[in-house]
């Protein structure tokens, strides 16, 4: 049964409920263990968590960064294609941020590379092992930024790719030759040629009829138009060749057809929801979206384009989301506000029901699924 079919069947049981769902025990506890790494951006910690038959628990808390009197901000995290290493972006430096490499399991630090301003989301090409990290540069002065390319064996930045203003989100296609990212303040989705280290295509998502994009001087763009969509995330391509983009500014989710390089559908998430991060199941049947302002997690049936459920989260500011390799669970981070701890919630994708949660360090944000095992 595909994840979409499971979802639709189970959705009957939950009655398409849009009301907040209370935390509950998993009615069908997992037989496997699921491992994720989670960044706590305001505590300079990374947490290794396991959800499985014995519940949801923290296996390790790794202190990251090297300047104890500064909050250095671990933001983005990803796993090498062979699962042996995890990579972590550290947002703040002097002034440049960095990416660090650790061994999975032992969490031993291996090396680092200085990148650009506020390195954030990243992904690794399974074809080359090269790591692509967007330099988010959210410092407010809207200037074009870059995507760094890092050779992960040596942790050397080997290229930078000029992209646009406030790039965020970075996900590879399965072949590892294309990276998808968005330029938040340019209202753009970009497709990066990961072999040539250059932007292959740009897609303007906004509504300004006079806006051009390809070949524009991005140094002038900030003053030319105010961003409307403010995209914050692009998913990996679905098997059907679609990439989904979170419109954080206009509270919508965009489906982009890669073959036609055009927006094929737009899903209105509703006012004040502000989708932030997205993840799709492996068959492309279900999309899970964190609603940053809405304090919800949206579950979308991608065949019909219908929102099936949007359960309320236990804490404010939902941020990251991953889906387990068997598509059974969506695991979501909640930043919290101020001194609140961050929280990680587990949802059953089929029922959109929250089945467990655990508190971690402050401002839980970046999350990556490591593995599942018996």
């Amino acid at each position, binding site marked *: 049964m595909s994840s979409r079919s499971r979802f639709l069947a189970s959705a009957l049981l939950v009655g398409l409920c849009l009301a907040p769902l209370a935390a509950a025990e998993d009615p069908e506890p997992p037989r496997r263990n699921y491992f994720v790494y989670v960044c706590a951006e305001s505590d300079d910690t990374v947490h290794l968590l396991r959800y499985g038959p014995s519940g949801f628990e923290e296996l390790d808390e790794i202190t990251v960064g090297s300047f104890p009197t500064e*909050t250095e901000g671990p933001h983005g995290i990803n796993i090498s294609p062979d699962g042996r290493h995890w990579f972590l972006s550290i947002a703040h430096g002097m002034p440049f941020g960095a990416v660090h490499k650790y061994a999975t399991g032992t969490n031993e630090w291996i090396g680092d590379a200085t990148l650009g301003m506020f390195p954030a989301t990243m992904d690794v090409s399974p074809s080359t092992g090269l790591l692509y990290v967007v330099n988010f540069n959210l410092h407010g002065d809207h200037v074009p930024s870059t995507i760094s390319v890092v050779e992960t064996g040596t942790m050397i930045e080997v290229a930078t790719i000029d992209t646009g203003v406030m790039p965020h989100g970075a996900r590879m296609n399965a072949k590892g030759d294309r990276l998808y990212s968005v330029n938040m303040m340019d209202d753009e989705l970009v497709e990066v040629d990961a072999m040539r280290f250059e932007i292959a295509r740009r897609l303007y998502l906004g509504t300004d009829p006079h806006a051009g994009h390809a070949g524009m001087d991005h140094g002038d763009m900030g003053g030319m138009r105010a961003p409307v969509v403010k995209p914050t995330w692009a998913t990996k391509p679905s098997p059907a060749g679609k990439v989904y983009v979170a419109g954080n500014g206009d509270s919508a989710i965009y489906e982009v057809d890669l073959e036609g390089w055009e927006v094929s559908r737009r899903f209105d998430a509703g006012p004040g929801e502000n989708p932030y991060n997205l993840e799709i199941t492996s068959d492309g049947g279900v999309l899970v979206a964190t609603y940053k302002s809405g304090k919800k997690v949206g579950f979308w049936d991608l065949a019909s384009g219908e929102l099936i459920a949007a359960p309320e989260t236990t804490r404010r500011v939902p941020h990251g989301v991953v889906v387990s390799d068997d598509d059974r669970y969506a695991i979501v981070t909640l930043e919290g506000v101020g001194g609140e701890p961050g929280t990680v919630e587990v949802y059953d994708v089929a029922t959109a029901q929250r089945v467990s949660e655990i508190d971690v360090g402050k401002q839980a944000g970046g999350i990556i699924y490591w593995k599942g095992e018996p």
Partner: protein
Amino acid sequence: MKHSNPRTRLLIAFALTFALAPGLALAQEEEADAGPQPAELIVTPAELELEVGDSLTLEAEVRDSDGNVMDRTVVFYSRRRRSVGVNPAGIVEAYRPGEHVLIAMVPKDPEDLHRRAEPAVMLEIPVTIPNPPVATVEVANLPGHLYAGTEIGLRPTVTDISGAVRHDVEVGWSSADPSVASVDALGTLTLVSAGRTTLTVSAEAAASDTAIEVLANPVASITLSGAPDEPVRTGDVVFFEAKVTDASGNAVPDYPVQFATFGIPADGIVAPGAIGQVDDAGAFVAERPGTHTVIVDGFNNSASATIAVVSRNIRKDVEVVGRGPVRDRRTSDLWVWEGTDGRDYAVTGTHSADGHAYFWDVTDPSAISLIDTVRVDARTVNDVKVSEDGKFCVISREGASNRKNGLVILDVSDVANGIEVIARYDDQLSGGVHNVFIAEDHIYALSAGRRYDILNAEDPTNPYRVGRFELDTPGHSIHDVWVADGIAYSSNWNDGIVAVDVGGGGMGGAPNNPVMLGSTPYPSGWNHAAYPYRSQSTGKFLMIGGDEAFPYQTMRAERTPGRAAGWIHIFEWDDWENAREVARYQVPEAGTHNLWVEDDILYIAYYNGGLRVVDISGELRGDLYRQGREIAMFRPFDPETVKPNTPFVWGPQPFKGHIFIADNSSGLWAVKLVDAEPRNLGEPQ
């Protein structure tokens, strides 16, 4: 059974992996037989030697295990792209000398969707770019007159054909007539006798000759003046002057002399190390009491003087007067001021917490009371400042939930009746404001770790940006800014302390037109704080720079309570183009944070070293710590905090006879200096 090919074996291995570890997150797609796989990558040429500026195209050929040429993408990149570049077409450009490596790789089969980390084939291509040949080499420091019997350490200036000054080239020295002057391999020129000769300096194929004339040594006597009649204290600077005269009693002002010192420490001081120093201008300072001798050496003549040095004897004890404990979260900076109602107040920020700023009544430092708490959407309120008129306060924000950090302005004009937020400002400050300063109705706010924005706050409810200052040096970064007398002094790590005219520098600067005046050198790259100060005792303008560094922090070790490094750098800076670092204050095994100066006394928050109070009166040279200029030290211990008994002093501020300190572990403290109790410290001083 046929032998399987490598591809088949790979598939079997994957299948076994699945069977043994079915939970591994491997791709779920069906395997497809993608045919022959790349087995060999041949790049021509296999290694390169290029001159700077040269370009060359690499040819790449991919072959399978049977040697058949394959049509596959080859990815090129450079591991040192600022020295040698390569584009996707394999065109190489040489930028800088050195031994470099280019990479060529063939990505894994695009149809193979399993997770893996490495490319199919990867090749390293060594690239050698030799240094450009030396164009010129010259002697850099020959004085106008050369006198027989003296020595000079020569320095070369080597320039290559690219115009770069080189320090990595072996230099050779020779003299045409060693009976007049000889020169050794280190460039030490020994002037033997009066006469003429030619010096030759060479580097690679370049060389230059310099004709020199050695004059007969005219010196008949050397005298040394400046020795005080009375004993001086450790840390007091004594300026000696050497006078060199010929047989007629005429001065020989350009005659080279060298100063040296030695001494006999006071009884009871054992294994003292060097107990004093004298610089090349004859400025002497003692670190230990005793009998010191200063010598001026004129090669054929010398003179000396003896100085009695006593202990500085300025030590005070520190008495805790009162506390405003903050035990459940970490404290950041503080500011103490006299309110418009005549009472005294302090504000402290919080770090890695939940956005609190605490307001204290400190009118009676023995009875500090918390009078108000302001909480903003932030995790860290790193800095707190109050305007000169005591009417508004600015607190910085980092870690705001909406990632729009900026700063918050509070009305503190009537503290007794409450403190209100009157403005928030985050335009282009969304990445977080680490430090702020208020001067003459303007707010200076750090932005992006790169610059500071200047906001007009004549109406603090409606601040607006009027200016901005940012360096243009590569990788520039900023940590703090302090404004005094219309000049902004920013702390810029590697770029040192930067002075900018914002209205008082005489260069036409203003908040809306900041004009850079100059900067200090800062070789350590650790400049974190700066305090401008005109010495009351000497009238000299001093710039006191503080480091921040954690070199002991490693990514591999388990984390322990913070141990900082770094020290205080004291510059004389009366000429913007020529800041001279004359003295340091360095506590071993601890590191500095914020500082303050008042009445020729330096107050330093020395992190794990606690509060340090240092006498900076008079002329300054050398290491003030070793000279006994430290008046007092205090380490705040509190066993009941988030970091029990872990002093980590963040900021000091002297105020109306007390010293207020913010301790990261335990909150606000008020202390005062009192006469020291007699103590046996093991030896004098």
